[in-house]
């Protein structure tokens, strides 16, 4: 029988022979510990894949931005009065349109918010773990959160906060308020999370920025986005893009 560790190694470097593959499959069925280790490594592979994909995506967004910034202005042939006149009137129209847009409609804050808001996944509490025997308040709160039952999530997290006032409870309560469009409540909690300077601090900054955008508090949004970019741990690229759009 081949070393289990080597089997896993060969699996993840795509080098299992047919015979090893058979051993491998047998072990998965019979050896609980082996299966656990395999699942762990497989999950890890998936997590890294997602992380790398995200980072590739932000690189592509960066390339795209560079292209937009360097598109050369097409030169019009000289001595062609008509084309010039056309170009001039288009420029005038665009200019007027831009002025009008800038003066009268301004930034579409709601749209910026919608484009960027995505609820933060529950990374705290593994709902499947305890199965049905676990009927703790905490579990119910996260279940409500994950199933978008915002009112219930708010109620349960608030109850939980009375006995267990932690950074994560505050953060997910704030998330629930945001989803329920109660911005003031969300902001207070996010500021609390921020003050703790713990693991959710950069995330709190991001959501605080979005909340400010939604309530059209441009200066505050810009300030917190800048803090987030300086922090650099979370959504740095997205924050830069948003900042551009606000300016």
């Amino acid at each position, binding site marked *: 029988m081949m070393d289990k560790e080597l089997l896993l*190694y060969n699996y993840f*470097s795509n080098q299992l022979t047919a015979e090893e593959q058979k051993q491998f499959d047998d072990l998965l069925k019979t050896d609980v510990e082996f299966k656990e280790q395999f699942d762990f490594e497989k999950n890890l592979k998936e*997590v890294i894949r997602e992380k*790398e994909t995200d980072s590739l*995506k932000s*690189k*592509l967004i960066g390339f795209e931005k560079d292209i937009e910034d360097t598109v050369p202005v097409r030169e019009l042939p000289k001595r062609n009065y008509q084309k010039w006149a056309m170009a001039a009137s288009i420029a005038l129209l665009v200019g007027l349109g831009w002025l009008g847009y800038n003066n009268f409609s301004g930034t579409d804050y709601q749209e910026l918010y919608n484009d960027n808001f995505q609820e933060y996944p529950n*990374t705290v509490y*593994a709902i499947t773990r305890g199965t049905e025997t676990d009927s703790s308040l905490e579990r119910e709160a996260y279940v409500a959160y994950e199933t978008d039952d915002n009112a219930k999530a708010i109620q349960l997290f608030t109850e939980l906060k009375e006995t267990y006032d932690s950074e994560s409870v505050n953060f997910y309560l704030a998330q629930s308020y945001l989803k329920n469009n109660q911005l003031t409540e969300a902001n207070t909690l996010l500021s609390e999370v921020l003050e703790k300077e713990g693991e959710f601090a950069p995330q709190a900054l991001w959501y605080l920025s979005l909340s400010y955008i939604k309530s059209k508090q441009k200066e505050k949004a810009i300030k917190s986005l800048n803090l987030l970019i300086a922090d650099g741990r979370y959504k740095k690229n997205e924050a830069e893009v948003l900042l551009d759009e606000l300016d």
Partner: protein
Amino acid sequence: MENTQAEITLEDLRKGSDDLLRLVYESNRQKFLNYARRYNLSEEENIDVYQDAYVIFYDNIMSGKLESLSSSISTYLFSIGKYLIFDKMRKNKKVVSGDFDLSRVGETDELVNTFEMEPQSLTTEQELLKKHFGSLGDKCQELLTLFYYRGFTIQEIMEAKNYNNENVVKSAKSRCMKTLKEKIQANTY
């Protein structure tokens, strides 16, 4: 451009330097956008599709699903892009003008039919793992990424990262895995 692309090998892509990523992105972009315009999506949507196609192409190289380039890179990008566009239109229930056959919606080219087009979103457990993986030291993250994502063997890691011998790599890898497991156990309650 055509010539530079012809020389890009799968190995080069796997190494994935930023310069190469940019070169491939820029040299196929215009062609792709011209092609995509016939489907009446907005320019912004076309750019999104192009980027998604690019990411999927890359992902399938890394996961070993694409073992050799039997066609030019742009052919792959077009095939994936076409699938994504049809998929998008189906989801938008967009009424399509033009003369292409809707029965082809969702159908993928032979070339890419083994590709994984829609990666699953992470489970709760994986999200937790992601958080802790992100808190590992850079060295550990790099080593595990080389192994689990880029498909480097221990020997290749040793060569690429100037480790003294394979055993050093192996024990570094087990240490990283051990730390990761400890972090998870400490956090789960």
